[in-house]
Every structure is written in structure tokens, then in C-alpha cells.
């Protein structure tokens, strides 16, 4: 069973005291965890909570038995941190609760939010794991909806180079995702 994409943290166990592993985990989980936390608390507070959580993990030199274990732990810890944060705020008798831009939808529970965050994250990781220029072209083209001319302008490249990067990026994405079956290629084509 592939629970965390092979392109993310291919080795198990996950040793967070290794700087390279720590950096990779941080970059791969920062946005989805912020997104998830913002369902409970204000977006600004969410970012602080994530930073503090990773600071604690670094200090503890935590080791996880597998990427899946890390994933489960992170979401569990973020949710607890958010709930604690809200509780402490209430105790401070805050009169003006900051306006949260991501109010939880009634009836949608935190496990659903977790699925939301991680499905989006899988796509994000695959695209951003490409070599930097390629990744930027793919991101602007398929995620941010810029056209070739706009990308060329923004990155100071010719339109032909942008097209080349797009082609190369899609090929790389295809290779990145495990062999036999389809790839994100299809998904990217959907976005067009």
C-alpha cells in the first residue's frame, strides 16, 4: 500500500534529526498542515503552530517508524495544538475572536479535512519535486493558470523554452510516478 507518495520520503524509518530529512518533511507538509490547521484556527496562528510543532520535533530528535507514521503523527499533533490553542485563548477571555478565513464547515469532521489536505498535498508534492525551472513552469501553467506568453514574460524566457520546459516537466512527472500505470499527466491535462 502506498500511503505517502514514493517521491516524498522514500526511506523508512524517518529520522528527523537528519537535516535533509527534516527539511524535506517540512517542505512537504508545511502547506497541507497549514491548510488543515486553518480549519480550526486563524490562518496566521496556524502558521505559527506548525513552526512550533516542528521546533519541538527537532528538539526531541524524533524518529518515526515509517512515512505513514510521520503523517499520522503530524495531523494528530496539529489538531491537538489547535484545540489547545483555542482553549488557552478562551481562558484569556479574548473578547474579539479573530475572524478565521476558513470556518469549519458544519458536519465535516477533521478526518475529512485530513483527506482534503493530503490529496491536495499529493498533487503539490509531485509538481514541486521537479527540477526548479521545470517545476515553476508547470506550476504557473497548470496550477496558476498563466499562459505561455505570460510565463515567458515573468521568467524572462522565450515562449519556445517555456514549451520545452512544459514537455520535459510532464515527462519527468510521468517517470516520477510508479511505473506501470498512468501518471499525473492525465491530471495535468485535465487542468488545461
Amino acid at each position, binding site marked *: 500500500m502506498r*500511503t505517502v507518495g514514493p517521491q516524498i520520503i522514500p526511506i523508512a524509518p524517518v529520522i528527523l534529526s537528519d537535516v535533509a530529512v527534516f527539511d524535506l518533511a517540512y517542505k512537504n507538509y508545511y502547506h497541507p498542515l497549514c491548510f488543515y490547521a486553518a480549519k480550526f484556527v486563524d490562518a496566521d496562528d496556524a502558521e505559527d503552530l506548525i*513552526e512550533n510543532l516542528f521546533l519541538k520535533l527537532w528538539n526531541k530528535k524524533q524518529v518515526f517508524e515509517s512515512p505513514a507514521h510521520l*503523517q499520522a503523527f503530524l495531523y494528530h499533533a496539529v489538531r491537538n495544538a489547535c484545540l489547545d490553542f483555542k482553549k488557552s485563548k478562551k481562558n484569556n477571555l479574548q473578547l474579539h475572536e479573530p*475572524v478565521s478565513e476558513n470556518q469549519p464547515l458544519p458536519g465535516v469532521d*477533521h478526518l475529512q479535512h*485530513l*483527506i482534503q489536505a493530503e490529496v491536495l498535498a499529493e498533487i*503539490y508534492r509531485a509538481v514541486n519535486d521537479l527540477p526548479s525551472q521545470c517545476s515553476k513552469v508547470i506550476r504557473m501553467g497548470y496550477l496558476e493558470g498563466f499562459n505561455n506568453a505570460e510565463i515567458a514574460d515573468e521568467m524572462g524566457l522565450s515562449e519556445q523554452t517555456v514549451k520545452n520546459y512544459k514537455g520535459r516537466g510532464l515527462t519527468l512527472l510521468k517517470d516520477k510516478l510508479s511505473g506501470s500505470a498512468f501518471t499525473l499527466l492525465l491530471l495535468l491535462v485535465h487542468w488545461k
Partner: protein
Amino acid sequence: MTGEDITGQQRIIYLITDYIAGRLTIEETAELDSWIAEEPKNRLLFEQLTDETYRQPILSQWKPEAAENSLQNLKHKISLQKTRTLWPRIAAAASILLFLSIGGYFLLHKKPQQQLAEQIAPVNKGVVLTLGGGQQIQLTQKHQGLITAIGNTKVSQSDSLLTYNGKAANAEPAMNTLTNNSGSKFTLALADGTQVFLDVASSITYPVSFTGKERKVNVVGQVFFNVKHNATQPFLVMVGKEKIEDIGTEFNINAYANEPAIKTTLVNGAVKVTEPTASVILKPGEQVIGKDGKVTVAAVNLEEVTAWLQGKLIFHRETLESLMGKVARIYNVNVVWVDDVRNEKFGGSVSRSKKLATVLNYFRKAGNVDFQVDGNTVKVFKKKK
């Protein structure tokens, strides 16, 4: 969250992702289908995640640069605590020395500015009502009662709402002007029942009652209209040389003097927009941009255009130049471009009641830009690597 719980979710994450990528086996597809059928909320979630129009706006805001910045931030925190645990005394001594040598300078020069940046709140200079004779009345947002009477018309206030009531006089009605100088919206109910919402640094000039063949008002800045339709007495909004004619309508006008164009957006009904050399009838969801006497029409995101009515700033791929224009008005600050990062683009949503520092931090975290606040001037830099 128990171990079993999360394992179950991880399986679903895998199934949905691979469904999107189109590489599920027949058995896996059946497994996903049965999960979807389990509960209505599962189906909802599945439909949401497989809808690109749901995914794209979220993913476009997940900038790798923002994650990288946050990581550097965290590493800075880590390096600070390392110094403390290894060299607690030296660090303490060093920090005292540091404080003595340069701290004084910062206290005298930098600190007050930093504090100021923290404290700058949305501008709150009240609302001014200018009567026909030029007499000005300063309104505060928290007030209830009669403000004045003009002929047969009574003008009364209820917090952030000013209402005109009364029968049209035979004589030519007086013209009043209402100007909002505060960051939160102010509402005006005209004598005909039309509602007008004024954003910061915006004003409207209008007759105290409506006589004659048409109802004509002039506006500057950002104004939202909810017009009480009356086919026999059309409602006209003049913005400089542009004329906007209501045909039963809710619409938004954005026409600040320092913006290059007049933008009229239709939410409901129909309006006719006439520039000196062109004219167009808008459909709901369309925006007309009037510039140099010409008009261009495009479909826009209504949530974005009308976010100010909810006290929010919502933006997609908006340039920093345009965003800072809004920030300048809301916080009554000047913007100085030290580095030309005017075309950096941002997407997101912020509450307009937040402090200036919070808003600037948002941009700092999301993009390649940095700010320094000196008094009421915001200097904009490219972020140093």
C-alpha cells in the same frame, strides 16, 4: 485520532489521488465506490477533490517559496536556542553588550517605528456630511438620532447608516455630499430608498430628495449601489465623464482618482455604462473597465469585487501594486517602491480589520517581498536571500 482511524484515512487518500491520476485497478475502484456510498459526506468530499475548480485556487496559493521562508524562519529559531543551550552565559553577556552598543540606537530610532507598524490600524477618521450651503457635519460611527432637517427631508443616523426621509419639495432640492474617511463601510439610504455603501476614501454627492425626470448622483472612490428601481425616473451615477444608468440593479463602482480606470461590476439586474465614445449594457457577473473614453467588458469574480462589503480583501493573482494601493487607502499610508516588485502576484483573503503589520507579514510570508514602515510610509523591498 486512533491508529486505526488514520490508517483508514490514508487508504482513502491513496485511492482518491490515484483515481485523479487515473490509475486505479478494478478492485481499487470498487473499494473507492463502496467508501463513497457509505455516507453522503464521503461523496461530497470525493466530488470536491475531483473538481479542478475546487483544487486550483487552493493549490495556486501553496507557494513553495512560502514553505521555504517558514523553514528558514524555523532554522533561525533553532540556531538561537542552540546558542543559548551551548553558551548560556556568553550568550547572555553578548546580548547585554549587543543591547548596550547598538540597542540604544534601535531603541531611539528603529523601535518606535517597529511599534508603530504593529499598531497602525485601519484608518478611522469618521464620516463627513457636507450640506448644500457648504456646512460640514462630522459623523461618528456610533451615534443614533436626528442629524438635521432640510426642507421636508429629515436626515437621521443609526450607527453606520444615514437615512434620508421625506416628501420631495417643489423647489430645486439641495445637494449633499457624504464622504467616508474610515476603513469600515458606511451606508446611506437615499430619499428614494436606494441603498449606497461607501468604502474608505469614497464619497457621493446627491440631492436630498428626487424631483424631475431622473435621479442623478456623483461618486468618487468605491461605492456599491442597491438601487430602488423606478422606470419612470431612471437612476444615473456619474463618475467623471462616465455615466452608469440603472435598469433595476445592484452594482459596484471602483473609481479612485489614483487608479487608471473606472471599474463597474454588475451583481444583479442590468446597467448601461456610457463613456464619451462608447457604451455597453452589462450582465450580472460582468465588469466594465472604462478608460480614456473607451469600455472593455470581462467576466469577474463577484466575491472578490464585493469582499469589501464583508470587511474582507479577497484577491487572485493580483499584483502587489494594486494590492498596496488598497492597503494605502485602508491604513492611510504612503507606499514607496525601493525595489520594483510591483508585478509580484498574490492570492488570498485577509480581514480588513487587521493591523497593518499582520497584512504586511502575510505578503512577506507568501512572496518574495519585504517591507519597512517609517511613520506612515511603507517602503517595499525585494526579499534579500
